[in-house]
């Protein structure tokens, strides 16, 4: 990827290194009150049944992902956004209905797409000569149980070899209706990637030629990479001490 502006390399949404941002609330990993809330963490040591007597039990930390960015995005980001919006308009679509929001963070451009328009957007990005994102590097998913109504996020990274660019598409679906249209018809490489996401997150890709489990056994119950699925494990004895299973150890929320 040719970075549009090397001087903002490795900076947060507001152009300042988040670690050195004086406007951020003085908490580690906290960024002011901008951004999109995807969950709330309470306490300090992962104990939420009153077992935390350290005094940190009342700590509340809101988790905010970088929120929507307004124009200009900087460098070639604006060019790609303009071309995409123009190409969508040519197809009789209203860009505001298709692109939920655009996020620029850490030198990366993310389009949040309404799920029903994903195949159209993917095809446009692949075929438009000014865009030409020929290579899809597959789909990854993230489960945000606290992000009500959009718990499951599917994340696509598209690479343009012609223009040496990289963008990200993000699509969300609620837990109750985990459906996203498949893009296998546009990017055949996503065949296995979509099977993998289905296997681990239970996201159903409508239109996939054969959506079956790929890693886990065919008769497996549940979707292992969801946050409510336990890691499992057994306590291990080491030098006389019992070491609890990894998901039972102390964690820092």
């Amino acid at each position, binding site marked *: 990827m040719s970075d549009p502006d090397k001087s903002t390399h490795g900076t947060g949404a507001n152009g300042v290194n988040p670690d050195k941002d004086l406007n951020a609330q003085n908490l580690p990993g906290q960024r002011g009150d901008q951004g999109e809330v995807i969950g709330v963490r309470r306490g300090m040591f992962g104990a939420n049944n009153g077992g935390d007597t350290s005094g940190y039990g009342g700590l509340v930390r809101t988790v905010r992902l970088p929120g929507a960015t307004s124009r200009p995005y900087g460098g070639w980001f604006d060019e790609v956004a303009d071309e995409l919006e123009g190409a969508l308009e040519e197809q009789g679509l209203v860009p505001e209905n298709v692109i939920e929001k655009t996020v620029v963070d850490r030198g990366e451009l993310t389009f949040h797409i309404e799920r029903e328009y994903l195949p159209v957007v993917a095809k446009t990005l692949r075929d438009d000569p000014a865009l030409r994102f020929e290579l899809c590097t597959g789909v990854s998913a993230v489960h945000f149980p606290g992000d009500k109504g959009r718990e499951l996020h599917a994340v696509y990274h598209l*690479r343009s070899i012609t223009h040496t660019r990289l963008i990200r598409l993000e699509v969300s679906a609620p837990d109750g209706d985990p459906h996203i249209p498949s893009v296998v018809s546009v990017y055949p490489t996503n065949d296995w990637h979509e099977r993998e996401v289905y296997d681990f997150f239970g996201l159903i890709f409508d239109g996939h030629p054969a959506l079956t489990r790929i890693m886990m056994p065919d008769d497996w119950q549940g979707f292992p990479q969801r946050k409510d699925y336990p890691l499992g494990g057994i306590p291990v004895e080491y030098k006389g001490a019992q070491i609890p299973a990894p998901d039972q150890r102390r964690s820092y929320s």
Partner: protein
Amino acid sequence: MSTSSTSHATPRETTEGTVYTVTGGDWDEVVEAAAKTDDERIVVNMGPQHPSTHGVLRLILEIDGETVTEARCGIGYLHTGIEKNLEYRTWTQGTTFVTRMDYLTPFFNETAYCLAVEKLLGIQDDIPDRATIIRVLLMELNRLSSHLVCIATGGMELGATTIMIYGFRDRELVLDIYELITGLRMNHAFVRPGGLAQDLPPGAVDQVRAFVKKMRKNLTEYDKLATGNPVFKGRMQGIGYLDLAGCLATGATGPVLRSAGLPHDLRKSDPYCGYETYDFEVPTTDTCDAYGRFLLRLEEMRQSLRIVEQCLDRLEPGPVMVGDKKIAWPAQLALGPDGLGNSLDHIKKIMGTSMEALIHHFKLVTEGFRVPPGQAYVAVESPKGELGVHAVSDGGTRPYRVHFRDPSFTNLQAMAAMCEGGQVADVIVAVASIDPVMGGVDR
């Protein structure tokens, strides 16, 4: 005994007993009938335990005689849930897991993961130059060892056992360097978020220089042994054919894509770790076949040697870990009688002189560091293709989600396109030319 009129094996009595004479005049009819009834069409299950399927890869081949009509992959036999496990460890502990994904390219996994974490932290510009140069050095040595295994096992699968011996002989030289530098032959966890676990030990530079010299000489042996070998060429040329359109559709990258003539290499097109400042070439061929990929791997090894030499010339004394003490861990390691651990000086300092330092050490080791919320995607050019890391943080001390886009996983999808319509024996060659490693495919 019945002697039906349709039988062409007519019996005749002799003193020794009945003798049948098979005339075989109707074999054309027999073959035609067999083709009609499809009796020759069988489904062969290859693997998951088969020496020439590169680990626990299962191939399900539908064959008609010697021709493969349909080829499918069964994967998942080596799935170890590394991505899930990462969510229950600190960001630093993550390197111990990701190094085990594609076990032939540990330094690429570690570096890609650490680059993603550093991007999330926003500290890319703070990584010491020496750490970055040593990362490049290790990655290029790793490219050599990975390609050597590919060529060695690929040759062995053709029956060329000499090439196997040569490949593993030379790989051993690389592993000796790993062992000297990191202490381990594989699963190093040497690259850490913020830099490296340790600096190079004394004598490492000299040993790498000696290796480069020796390897330059050894590489010509592969040319002498295989490149012009008519049997080798006969088995590889035109086999595992996948053209550029096929590569882009199936998402194949690395030598598979470059064998179709496209000089796409992330070290050039999306440079990381300062690759834009190194002098090297991206070789391509336009044969789209297994032989082309073999030649590419040989040439890439030569280019890697060039980069290794440039790394050695650039090395200057300095830190190998970021200055921020809240991230830099482990920072003070030393070799003790019971192995590698915190240096006695460091322990003396934190236990005896500074309570603040002790608290910091305790917090860093037990809790780790916090990473600002957000997501990052970093891709490196591994020997197999684009190795991408999608890392998501929720502001905690552990990764919220890490996904590896492993090139072996994606490239293996191209197996069917390469094999269908070919001979059974060529399936082995085609799969070997993709160079899949199941540790990376299944993660």
